């Protein structure tokens, strides 16, 4: 699941991070230029000691003040150059770096919107958020700072060593040998640190999830007064993260210790050796001076390797996390050669549809287990079944929010998997059982399924949009919108005005109707409406459904009565299809699911039924007697 690392063989850090390359590619020239500038800055700083050596061994030794100015001037120029190169490095790298980040972020978002609902069922949104924000931030900073400096500082160190050896072979070698433990430690550090870094990032995602749930579920928490309780849970998680972060700090402290200690010890030994060499006359004082000046310049690059490495490993885990989402294979995609339905009539067919949720074992019967059902064009079909029987699941299959496990769903004889998702969802519009509104005006929410109207500037489109809006609002009995502060331009949804449950549901219904689809799929669309409003909406919906194919999930007889036929969903199958009264008469399970009459009332209804039947039978008997008597009569006649 979301927080466990997949058991793929671990890529090397280099290979793992190299996966960013496609995103970074356009910016690579800039990054190289930035490295060039950084390297130039590094070299300049290394040249300064050479000038100093010349100064010490030259004018200072000979006591010629005339030579001081030129030397100082060179030092000054080099110093200015260093600043210029640093500025160039930033200039080159940083803005392109932000573009890489933006590109990756848009890519991630596009991938997330593309991935099927099953993926979103599985992933905590906090985990997704932390990938989209902090991880990408980290990668950007690493690319434009960590990466550049890591490369450049490594080169600087190598060059510096060469220069050091140049000053004094023995001292330089001493310095080199001393640094060997550092490389070993650095290697060990990676293994240890990467694991902790990964854990920390995952825990951050979990924390984001906890925060999100605590605000989305605030009503429940308030209703039960469980704010403190949820704080305890949150605090536990935050505590875990704290532990991990401290562990991380300990790992960093380990490498930090060696990075500080080794140069110091090397310095001390070099001092010893240097003084000895100078005493033997194998080294001038100026050279000794320059040696230490160079070594001092090298200190920062060496020390910086510590945090650059940890930053690199952080970036690596961030990359891993990013690609966990990007690598996810989308199972619900558009076909290569999509079919198209020019004029959909709205015949919707389920053909031996089997559907199993991803976490169900393969040997258990699916949630849907062989559905066969056809909705004729223009027909309204009610879907009835007990709670958890799979009604919502079945509606979700029609627009490929999930794909069938076996069998197929056809629209006008075309397998819906052969259509593009865009086209399919244009032909079929849905209203969900929870009415999700987006932060936008009432108008935009209702016309969500009609981008061609809202995004065009022509007056005709605007007029058409207005007409569609008015009609949809009227059908859903959503005239309350006109009394909102800014009418249909009032912002609703999370960032806007809160509406009552029934009001939200009516807007969601209006949205489905306004999409003007060939097939309307409505999941329990009237559950939050009062009896009167429900009756009004039903009457209006009937008009729409006269020409549109409709699949309506229903729990109440009143809703069912809108339908031409009813399909009964039972144990994953459609066990009966017929009109409401037919089913009521012949199907016991249907009576069980839909009959709201009390038992005695049911008995009364049955009594009436029986009486009717009796009367019928009576009638039939009388008919028979009649016929018989007539036969007798005839016979009589015959005999006569």
């Amino acid at each position, binding site marked *: 699941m979301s927080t466990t690392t997949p058991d793929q063989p671990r890529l090397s850090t280099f290979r793992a991070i190299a996966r960013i390359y496609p995103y970074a590619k356009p910016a690579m020239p800039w990054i190289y230029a930035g490295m060039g500038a950084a390297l130039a800055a590094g070299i300049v700083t290394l040249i300064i000691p050479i000038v100093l050596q010349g100064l010490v061994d030259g004018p200072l030794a000979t006591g010629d003040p005339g030579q001081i100015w030129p030397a100082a001037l060179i030092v000054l120029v080099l*110093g200015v150059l260093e600043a210029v190169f640093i500025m160039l490095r930033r200039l080159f790298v940083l803005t392109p770096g932000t573009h890489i980040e933006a590109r990756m972020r848009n890519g991630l978002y596009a991938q997330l919107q593309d991935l099927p609902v099953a993926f979103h069922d599985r992933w905590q949104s906090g985990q997704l958020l932390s990938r989209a*924000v902090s991880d990408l931030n980290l990668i950007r900073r690493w690319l434009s700072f960590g990466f550049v400096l890591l490369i450049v500082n490594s080169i600087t160190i190598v060059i510096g060593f060469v220069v050091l050896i140049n000053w004094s072979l023995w001292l330089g070698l001493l310095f080199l040998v001393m640094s060997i433990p550092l490389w070993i430690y650095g290697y060990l550090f990676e293994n240890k640190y990467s694991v902790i870094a990964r854990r920390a990032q995952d825990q951050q995602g979990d924390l984001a999830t906890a925060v999100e749930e605590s605000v989305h579920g605030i009503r429940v928490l308030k209703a039960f007064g469980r704010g403190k309780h949820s704080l305890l849970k949150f605090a536990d998680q935050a505590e875990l993260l704290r532990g991990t972060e401290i562990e991380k700090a300990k790992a960093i402290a380990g490498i930090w210790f060696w990075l500080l200690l080794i140069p110091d010890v090397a310095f001390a030994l070099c001092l010893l050796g240097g003084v000895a060499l100078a005493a033997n006359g194998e080294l001038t004082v100026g050279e000794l001076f320059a040696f230490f000046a160079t070594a001092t310049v090298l200190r920062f690059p060496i020390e910086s390797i510590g945090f650059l490495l940890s930053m690199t490993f952080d970036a690596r885990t961030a990359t891993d996390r990013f690609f966990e989402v990007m690598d996810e294979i989308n199972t619900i995609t558009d076909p290569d050669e999509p079919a198209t339905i020019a004029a959909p009539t709205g015949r919707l067919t389920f053909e031996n549809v089997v559907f199993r949720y991803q*976490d169900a074992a393969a040997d258990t019967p699916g949630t849907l287990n062989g559905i066969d059902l056809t909705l004729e064009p223009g027909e309204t079909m009610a879907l009835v079944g007990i709670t958890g029987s799979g009604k919502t699941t079945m509606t979700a299959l029609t627009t490929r929010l999930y794909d069938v496990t076996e069998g197929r769903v056809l629209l006008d004889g075309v397998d819906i998997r052969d259509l593009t998702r865009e086209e399919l969802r244009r032909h079929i519009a849905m209203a969900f059982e929870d009415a999700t509104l987006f932060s936008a005006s009432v108008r935009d929410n209702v016309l969500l399924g009609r981008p061609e109207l809202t995004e065009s500037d022509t007056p005709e489109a605007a007029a058409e949009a207005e007409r569609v809006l008015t009609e949809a609002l009227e059908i859903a009995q959503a005239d309350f919108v006109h009394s909102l502060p800014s009418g249909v331009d009032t912002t609703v949804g999370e960032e806007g005005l809160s509406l009552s449950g029934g009001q939200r549901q009516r807007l969601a219904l209006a949205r489905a109707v306004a999409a003007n689809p060939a097939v309307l799929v409505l999941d329990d669309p009237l559950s939050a409406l*009062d009896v009167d409003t429900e009756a009004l909406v039903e009457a209006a919906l009937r008009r729409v459904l006269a020409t549109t194919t409709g699949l309506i999930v229903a729990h109440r007889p009143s809703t069912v009565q809108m339908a031409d036929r009813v399909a009964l969903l039972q144990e994953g199958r459609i066990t009966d299809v017929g009109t409401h009264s037919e089913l009521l008469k012949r199907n016991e399970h249907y009576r069980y699911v839909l009959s709201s009459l009390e038992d005695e009332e049911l008995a009364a209804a049955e009594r009436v039924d029986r009486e009717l039947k009796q009367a019928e039978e009576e009638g039939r008997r009388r008919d028979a007697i009649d016929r018989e008597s007539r036969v007798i009569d005839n016979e009589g006649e015959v005999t006569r």
Partner: protein
Amino acid sequence: MSVTGVEGEERDDFSRAESKQIRARSLRLLGSLVRPLRWRIVGTMVVLVISIALQVAGPALIALGINTGLPALLDQNDWMPVALIVGAYVFTGIVGAALAAAFQVISARLSQAILLDLRKRVFLHTQRLSLEFHESYTSGRIIARQTSDLDSIRELLDSGLTQLVSGLLYMGFTAAALVILDPVSGIVLAVSLIPLLLLTRWFQVRSQTLFRQTRVASARLIVHFVETMTGIRAVKAFRKEPRNARQFAGHVEDYRDANARVIRLFGIFDPGLVLIGNVTVAAVLVVGAFRVVDGALLIGSLLAIVLYTRRFFDPAEEMAMFYNSYQSAAAALEKISGVLEEKPGVPDPTTPIDLWKARGTVHFDQVKFSYNEDAVVLPDLELTIPAGQTIALVGTTGAGKSTLAKLIARFYDPSEGAVTLDGVDLRKLHPKDLRRAIVMVTQEAYLFSGTVADNIALGNPEASREEIVAAAKAVGAHDFIESLPNGYETDVNKRGGRVSAGQRQLISFARAFLADPVVLILDEATASLDIPSERLVQLGLQTLLADRTAVIIAHRLSTVAIADRVLVMEHGRVVEDGTPAELIAGTGKFAQLHAAWRDSLV
């Protein structure tokens, strides 16, 4: 003008006075975070000071080595001074490095303690804030505060603060060493501080606005992201993806642009510091070199002076980074302190009245309520619900039923008048007693990710497994829970996506059963249930509600059967009030509704 709380959060053009006010509240927050830890901070500083002093000693020891060690060796072939100096160097190296490493861990503990404290505070405070606040502030912003804003504060604490303190100390010690070694160079260094300060001030002024913009931009981005992921089904079904992608790309670009502008500013600041440093090195060199020629300065000292001057500016880059993260964190802290400054619209009482054993009489005393000024939802409500009575509340959608219910649960406080429980104003009642006595099952059945058992246990965290199962059985949820892959231990996924809508309602019902309150409010808690389940629930309710006060909001009038009394609401007023039998027999609204409902059955 003044800005309190989250007001003006989206702006970045504060006046001087506003800026000051905001900064003051950020500092107050910072102070309150730091205060409990002050002794640990002092201890950490001591470690840091010693470790830096030891690191700074390096060049002085080298100078000593060249100035005294080398001549001693040359003149008297005496190894002692050199050996001593080298020994001292190794010692300072080891202890300095060890202390620096220790500091890393200690300071991480410190900053994590602060972060934990801040996280918890924000969390608890957002839980305390009223629904009114949450409705206008949006969940995405709170998430942004808790994630990206806290991230930038973490960065400041993690590396920034270390950089600042060690940088300052390092510079201080280096400067001191320099002054002791050679006061003249000290003066040169002092002069260089003037442009340094000017540059820093310039950066501060310019970057503050820009950093605020990055916070606002990142919050917008997060809000949009969260909304998309929350409504992903609707996004897909209505083909909102391309439009979303465009909108999101706009937010991403704004954020990128805000970031890039900060970075560009920093791109001038940082090389500026280097420039000042390098010019100073050249100046020190000139001043020193002439004196070496004059014989007024030893050559080893010149080396030390140049090294010190160079090293003095070494941390400048780090300090610049610190300053960067400081500004970023300051902008974040401004937003967070704003949230923390928000006063809960439904505050806990200062002197709460205890109500150990509530009987359950609810009274609306001349209550007027409106969500916002323009529209009054409940104009004037006078209503008594005697203890133990079960009330059915019906009426057209948008009439104010949920609002009435939310007032009893004290999600909101009345604009005028009071709601009382057993004669105690809810505003004065101890929150614990209030929540124990009154529980509401809301219209939307929200489940948290976690197991089914956890979700039911939310009603009463102390409940045993048996009690949880009993509650589930009472509402008829037990069978379906048992049929889930792991029974009560099944994870319901985010928002309870793993179970069907009706099953979600059953679980939240079980939750309310487990809470066992004196007053139970059910807001369309059976709307998504099928009829058999609804009947089971009602059966359970009949026993449960026997001695409890209950308000049941339902459009399915079947509920009315178990009610003692029916209230019909219209436009925020109770238009009919009576026993079910009376009302059905009458000619009013309810009689008509009931008849219509009857007709709709079967």
